[in-house]
């Protein structure tokens, strides 16, 4: 799976949570909050994307991210490796 495909998954889930958002117009350098998602929406988007991608990332790690690109990068890295977060 490519990084662009991971972005497409995240963008589709975000668009389904935010009224009137076209997934093709999503800029990965912006945050979900920038697109009007509230904290409950963000949980839905991330959880839905992780379920579809079959990866698991602790929410504590996700809180460090600042934009969609960071989320996509993290999900892509995990998907590309073992499906799990690397231990310190």
């Amino acid at each position, binding site marked *: 799976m490519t990084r662009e495909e991971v972005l497409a998954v995240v963008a589709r889930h975000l668009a389904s949570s935010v009224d009137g958002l076209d997934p093709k117009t999503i800029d990965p350098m912006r945050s979900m909050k920038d697109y009007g998602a509230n904290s*409950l929406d963000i949980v839905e988007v991330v*959880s839905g994307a992780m379920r579809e991608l079959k990866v698991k990332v602790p*929410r504590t790690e996700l809180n460090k991210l600042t934009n969609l690109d960071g989320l996509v990068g993290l999900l892509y890295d995990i998907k590309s490796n073992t499906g799990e977060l690397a231990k310190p």
Partner: protein
Amino acid sequence: MSWEASQFSLADFYYSDSDSPLTPPADYVAWRRDTAWATSLYEPVLCDPAGPINRLRTATGEQRVINMTSYGYLGLVRHPKVIAAAKQALDDYGTGACGSPILSGKSTLYQALEIKLSALTGYPAVLLFNSGFGGALGCAAGLMRKGDVAVVDARAHISMVDGLKVGGAKIAFFEHNSARALDEVLSAHNGARRLIFVDGLYSMDGDLADLPALIAVAESHGVGILVDEAHSFLCCGNTGGGVVEHFGMRAKVGVQYGTLSKAFSCGGGFAAASTDLIDYLRFYANTYGFTCAMPPSVVAAASAVIDVMQTETWRRAQLWENAAYFRTQLQSLGINTGESTSYVVPIVVGENRALLYQLGHQLREHGLFVTPVDYPTVALDQARFRASVTALHTRALLDQALQIIEDVFVPAMREKGLLRARAM
């Protein structure tokens, strides 16, 4: 907790990936097993009525603890007049209401409580609920629909948020207690049917809603406000009418919601508003009409509490005096008490969640019963103990509690470099 376990929290298992909804996610089950020691602090079993001192059931027997977890802020749970009223109601009305309030569950006791709460709140009409959480959920769901926008303080209680999800309204959070942020969110949703939701006193932080500033913004947008006084009603305001009374905002708040389970030490909740609005909620707040009315003994006890607090106003004064003392003493130890200005006092640990549970066990072993509050209930870097002061904590008990904190909490936090410089 192991490293792997401490990386996860309840935020990670809300959406299950198991094959059946009847099967919890396997990783949740494993995580619960791995964190059993830490989370054994939750669901403790008390051997006596909640008070300043309690006996907790342990694996080997019982343990005496100073209880700083109780919502019974005014110390009314063992009040003889309240207990007598409940017993009398059992004799006169039996054990249950045996019907929804709409159909057959209202008694003369029930009606009397509605009238007393109406007088205490200053609103013409009141609706009683058999659950504080359920009543809040029902009000939010009953007022807001798909297409509406609920403008909600970011730290508002989950009962309102759950109700808004049920009703289908869009939820727009604003930064906690920020009039500027409220203004921005209201402006962003201009044109929609909007209602603001705030707590009177925030249950995990102990600060009051800045109603004067928030309501000024609300009025500038022509938007109404609902104030959830679950933790403030009876304790705040000159007559116990909550934060709304404290700030002199009664005429400006559309709905005042309160519970009968906290300071009342009984159970249930109520909404106070205009007669027409309450009559609307009567049929659209489903947690009112589609469930059994409160048991008569609980109704009678809540009613007796209102009578007691007409004369025993010293309880309110003592509560605030105790809270100020405890909070000030904690701060003098260098402890972060967040934004608290009330009897709910956070003792902040920070992002070291493993330390939170380690300290929780040590404090309890030394005889101090405080509640650990972990992410996602509070922010990731704000894990804490929630200490609640009551009117019945004596100065000697508060000093004992503070000594335990100084002996156990302070050295551990200092060792980790997590303590502020000691206040002089």
